[in-house]
C-alpha cells in the first residue's frame, strides 16, 4: 500500500498529468454546467414546478369550494330543522287548541242538556203536583157529595141541612 502512495505522489509531481492537473477542463466544465442548468430549467424545473404549483392551487381551490359547499349544506340543514321544529310546534298548538275547543263544546252542551233536563223534570213535577192537587180537590168534592148522600140516606134529607 505504501508503494502505491509513493507512486501516486511521484506521478502527481510529474510535469503533465497527475491528480491536480488544472487546465481548460475547469472553465469548460463550468460553462457546461451552466448550460445544463439552463436546459434543465427549461425542460425540468419550470414545467414540473408549474405542474406542482397548479396542482396545489387546484387542490386548495377544490378544498375551499367543498368547504363552502359543506357550510352551505349545514346552514340549509339547520334551517330545515328549525322550520321542522316550528311546524311541529304549530301543529301541536293547533291540536291543543282543537282539543280545548272540543272540550269546551262538550262541557257547554252537557251543561245545557243537564239544565234542559232539570227544567223539564221540574215542569213535569209541577204539573204532577197541580194535577194531584186538582185530583185531591175533585176527590174532596166527591167525598163531600158522597158523604152528604150517605148522610141523607141514613138520616133522611130533612135532617141534613
Amino acid at each position, binding site marked *: *500500500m505504501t*508503494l*502505491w502512495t509513493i*507512486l*501516486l505522489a*511521484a*506521478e*502527481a509531481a*510529474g510535469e503533465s*498529468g*497527475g*491528480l*491536480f*492537473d*488544472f*487546465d*481548460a*477542463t*475547469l*472553465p*469548460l*466544465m*463550468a460553462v*457546461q*454546467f*451552466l448550460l*445544463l*442548468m439552463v*436546459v*434543465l*430549467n427549461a*425542460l*425540468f*424545473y419550470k*414545467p*414540473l*414546478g408549474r*405542474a*406542482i404549483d*397548479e*396542482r396545489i392551487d*387546484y387542490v386548495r381551490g377544490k378544498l375551499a369550494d367543498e368547504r363552502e359547499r359543506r357550510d352551505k349544506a349545514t346552514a340549509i340543514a339547520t334551517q330545515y330543522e328549525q322550520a321542522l321544529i316550528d311546524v311541529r310546534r304549530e301543529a301541536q298548538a293547533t291540536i291543543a287548541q282543537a282539543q280545548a275547543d272540543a272540550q269546551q263544546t262538550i262541557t257547554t252542551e252537557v251543561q245545557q242538556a243537564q239544565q234542559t233536563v232539570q227544567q223539564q223534570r221540574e215542569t213535569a213535577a209541577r204539573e204532577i203536583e197541580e194535577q194531584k192537587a186538582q185530583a185531591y180537590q175533585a176527590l174532596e168534592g166527591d167525598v163531600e157529595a158522597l158523604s152528604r148522600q150517605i148522610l141523607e140516606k141514613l138520616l133522611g134529607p130533612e135532617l141534613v141541612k
Partner: protein
Amino acid sequence: MDILTGFTATQVFPLAELEVGKHFYWQIGNFNLHGQVFLTSWFVILVLVIASLLATRNLQQVPGGMQNFMEYALEFIRNLAKDQIGEKEYRPWVPFVGTLFLFIFVANWSGALIPWKVLRIPASELAAPTNDINTTVALALLTSLAYFYAGFRKRGLGYLAKYIEPTPILLPINILEDFTKPLSLSFRLFGNILADELVVAVLVLLVPLFVPLPVMALGLFTSAIQALIFATLAAAYIGEALEGHGEEEHE
C-alpha cells in the same frame, strides 16, 4: 515506474488496473482538456436531459411513472433549497441548487454503478466526472460566484458590510472564509469520490470477488451523501448571503 508496470503486467483482470493521475488529453488550440471527464459528463447530462424529457413529455394532473419520480426529485430539491435559503427567496435558486445536486448525484452514481472501465479509451480510463479536480473546483467556484451574486443583488454594496460584522476584528477571518468555502467544497467532493474509487480498485486488485462488494455499497451511500452535502452547503452559503446580519427580520 518499474514496480507499477510489473504490478499491472501480472494482472489477470484488465478491469482491476489502477490508473491515477493519467488523463486522456484533447487539444483545442493551446488548451488541454481531460477527455475522459467530458465523455462521462456528457453521459450524465444526457441522462438528466432524457429523464427530464420523459417526465415532462406528457404532463398529467395526476402524475404517474417518470413524472411522479421526477416530481419527487423536484420536491426534494425544493425542500432542500427552502430549508437552507428560506421560504421567501428560495425559488430563483432552485435550478442552481437542483442542478448541482442532480449533476453530482448522477455523476457519482454513474461512477459507482456503471463499469466504465470496460470501455477502453486511448489513455486513462472513464470514471465519474466528479473524481477530477477540475470538475469539483468548477462547481465550487460557481457556488462562490452564486452566493456573491446573491449577496450583491439583494443588498448592493451593503453586502460588503458583512465582512466587518459582528466586529471589524473578524475581517481577515471573514475574507478567509470566502476562500475556504470553495476549497472545502471542491476537495471534499473530489477526495471522497476519488478515494472511494481507489479503495474499490485496490480491493478489486487484491481480491477480485465478493470482498469489494460491501465497499461498493458503501461507495453508493457516500456518493449520494456527497451530492446532498454539496447541494445543501451551496444552498446554505446562498441563504447566508441573502440573509445578512443587519436587517435580519425576526419572524
